[in-house]
């Protein structure tokens, strides 16, 4: 065995270990599509003036379901294009990491939607809770993804934590902002942050390909 074969064996080992452990689907298209949907949903919600509790919560839960379906479809198409299994071990691990916080977010939204009697003040906390939970989800998934996803998770968590401080939910003025304004906050977070992350990934991926 010569040194070239030893080096080749090491390269094969590294490639196979990455294939087993690291999620390798391109995330830029997923992030851009999710960001586009978030921005469009925010604009539609604000334009239509969906400011009832059921309207706001139902609208954004539907947007989340559509975003999830769209992301899965993009990932599946990429896997088929690469002639690899869609439900690969890294995909399964990413899904397992995402699931618990997303499930809690779904339960919180469903409880407000189906429980009835929720005040607008209470519903105003949902965007913050959703942002924190979503941040936790993608931070956990980021352990299997090499492209700065954990940082995005922290940004969501930070934005969610800061939101109740930035938006006066009544304790100072006694006046709760209309829910239509919450659509803009949802658009800025779930649309804007995803869009920015998608653009970052696209640019860095192009640079990497060019190098």
């Amino acid at each position: 065995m010569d040194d070239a074969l030893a080096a080749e064996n090491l390269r094969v080992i590294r490639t196979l270990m990455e294939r087993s452990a690291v999620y390798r689907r391109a995330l830029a298209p997923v992030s851009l599509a999710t960001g586009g949907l978030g921005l469009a949903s925010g604009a539609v919600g604000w334009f239509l003036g969906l400011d009832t509790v059921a309207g706001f919560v139902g609208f954004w839960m539907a947007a989340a379901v559509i975003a999830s379906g769209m992301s899965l479809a993009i990932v599946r198409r990429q896997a088929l294009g690469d002639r690899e299994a869609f439900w690969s071990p890294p995909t399964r691990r990413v899904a397992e990491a995402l699931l618990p916080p997303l499930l809690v977010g779904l339960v919180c939204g469903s409880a407000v939607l189906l429980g009835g009697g929720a005040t607008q003040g209470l519903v105003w906390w949902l965007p913050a809770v959703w942002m924190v939970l979503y941040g936790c989800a993608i931070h956990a998934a980021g352990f299997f993804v090499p492209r700065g996803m954990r940082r995005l998770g922290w940004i969501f968590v930070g934005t969610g934590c800061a939101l109740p401080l930035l938006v006066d939910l009544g304790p100072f003025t006694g006046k709760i902002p209309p829910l239509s304004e919450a659509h803009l906050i949802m658009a800025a977070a779930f649309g804007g942050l995803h869009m920015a992350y998608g653009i970052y990934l696209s640019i860095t991926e192009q640079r990497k390909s060019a190098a």
Partner: protein
Amino acid sequence: MNPEPFLQLDRTIHEKGRLAIMSLLAASPSLLYTELRDTLRMTDGNATAHLRTLHEAGYVAVTKSLEGGRSATTYSLTETGRTAFAGYVSLLEQIVAQTRRSDA
């Protein structure tokens, strides 16, 4: 060049198919038989033979379970297997480093 590292390479791991299986298992807590076979695009006969050899060498552990009414066979590296794999990689690195030194 010192031939020592060449002679120490673990022959059980050194075979291409078994090296690929060990590499996948080294980066994952456990993998289903089908995941191993499909990722490496091996035939059933090939994958089974390599896994049996690794199991007999004490490098992989086998767990059989029922998932959704179907039997599932899961493989993972044993401590012995992990140590042997780390040793194998370390020897390859020594070989490459030794050649770089003699080239310099």
